[in-house]
């Protein structure tokens, strides 16, 4: 469904992604793991078509069509969406408005999505998606927006960060339900969350250093990478 070919990203003359090749298959949950600063979010922004994340090299294909030069809206219209690691806040926009964006307002669906992320619709529908929401609440609303949007491909950048321990199983449930209609590219730091994926990719220092089952890749990350100074990631890449 999504094919990334030799993608290079430079920002302020610094190479952040250094030749990414990635395939995400239709219907799968594909997890991306990697240390802080390895380029996971940058990859997510680039796949969404964000303004400051235009590739300096490489191509992105979505359902076999080259989308490298398309902007965000056009990519969204083709079925790609992104939920940011730190979602934006909107003064004056209610949860209901937010969950109706880009589509017909279907209240029953919106309420159902809120319940799925464990938010009581009565208490949240009319609240604003502004700074008064806690970080965890905001993340849940973001997830609910993906549920109602039913995109073909959802890029979820750390949907589990800021979500409390007890709710983690709910989050996994949501993703499993979401999976029915939506292919998921999931970025996470939590091993247990990574295990719900069908496939995993390990990103280090702008390189893909390992690809495989979630168990394989998380173990590799734990055993090999965590003790490895950053400069060696490039060498690790050479070993693959």
């Amino acid at each position, binding site marked *: 469904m999504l094919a990334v070919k030799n993608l290079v990203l430079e920002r302020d003359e610094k190479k952040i992604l250094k030749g990414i090749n990635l395939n995400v298959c239709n219907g799968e949950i594909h997890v991306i793991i990697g240390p802080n600063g390895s380029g996971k979010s940058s990859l997510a922004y680039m796949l*969404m078509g*964000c*303004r400051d994340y235009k590739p300096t090299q490489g191509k992105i294909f979505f359902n076999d069509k080259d989308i490298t030069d398309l*902007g*965000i*809206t056009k*990519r*969204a*219209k083709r079925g*790609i*969406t*992104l939920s*940011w690691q*730190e*979602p*934006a*806040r*909107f*003064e*004056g*926009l209610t949860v209901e408005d937010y969950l109706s*964006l*880009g*589509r017909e307002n279907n209240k029953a669906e919106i309420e159902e999505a809120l319940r799925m992320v464990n938010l009581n619709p009565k208490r949240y529908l009319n609240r604003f998606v502004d700074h008064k929401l806690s970080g965890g609440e905001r993340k849940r609303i973001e997830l609910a*927006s993906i549920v109602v*949007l039913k995109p073909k491909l959802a890029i979820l950048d750390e949907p589990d960060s800021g979500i409390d321990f007890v709710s983690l199983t709910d989050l996994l449930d949501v993703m499993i339900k979401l999976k029915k209609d939506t292919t998921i590219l999931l970025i996470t730091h939590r091993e247990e969350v990574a295990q719900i994926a069908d496939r995993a990719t390990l990103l280090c220092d702008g390189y893909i250093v390992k690809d495989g089952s979630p168990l394989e890749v998380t173990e590799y990350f734990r055993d090999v990478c965590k003790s490895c100074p950053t400069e060696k990631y490039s060498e690790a890449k050479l070993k693959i």
Partner: protein
Amino acid sequence: MEEIMEAYKLSGGMPEDLKSEDTASMVVEGNRILKSNVIDGLIIEKKETKTGAKIKIIVEKGKKIKKPVHLCFSILPKEGLQEIISEIVVEENASADIKACCTFPNAQEVKHIMDAKIFLEKNSALTYTETHFHGSFGGIEVVPKSKVVVGENCVFKTNFSLVTGRVGRLDIEYVVDAKKNSVTEILTKVYGKEEDIIKIKEEVRLNGEGARSVIKSRIAVKDNAVSEVLNITEGNAAHVRGHVDCTEIIKDNARAKAIPIVSVKNESAKVTHEAAIGTVDKKGLETLMAHGLEKDKAVDLIIEGLLN
């Protein structure tokens, strides 16, 4: 009258609106009041002067004027002076939507001065849309000055647009005194060409608790046109919110200057400014776009949200 209707069309108006009996309207050509039609809930006092007209429009207490009130100010000859002294009072709980077309299609040496005082009393609302057409010679000077008092819980929206033909010299000055929990929205769109000179000063004083405002300017200048936009927002009371959003696009030898001045006197007040369209919270914009919205729609939604 036919000629005026043609000119009215050029400035974006629809002649039927000026002819209709159940729509309030007024036509001032030079210093002659050619037509005036009032409807229930509205009082229009008018007087021709040597150089123009003196007008007072009152929207009576509690009256909601549903159909827009149409005003047409014109100078058809190549030369002329028109000075309009106007006062608009929207009484308590009343509301109206005024659409003014200012049309000077043949202007070569024309001067149009508008001196307006606008009062919105408690819980009232006024939308004032002003569309200009100045012809293609650029021989015109237009000086609209407005002093506005936006009362408690009032909503005042003004929309100035001069985007077709030449501008000539434009010198806009708006000063708004915004009371408690009021909403003020000023939108200005001007397209300057050739030797046009655009000067805009819009000032909102958020003096009442919880007052909100947005000053949005969209200016494009090309050829040798010059524009200077001064947007001032003062946050003088608790929990006020103000936003200045000015985008100017320049081409050729044009010059543009944007001077946002934001000041805050209360620690719970928040006044922000953006100097370009792309800088309206980038992440917010991109989030909305990732939900399928076009960029312009996303920008509007973010700003609309602020006034909600």
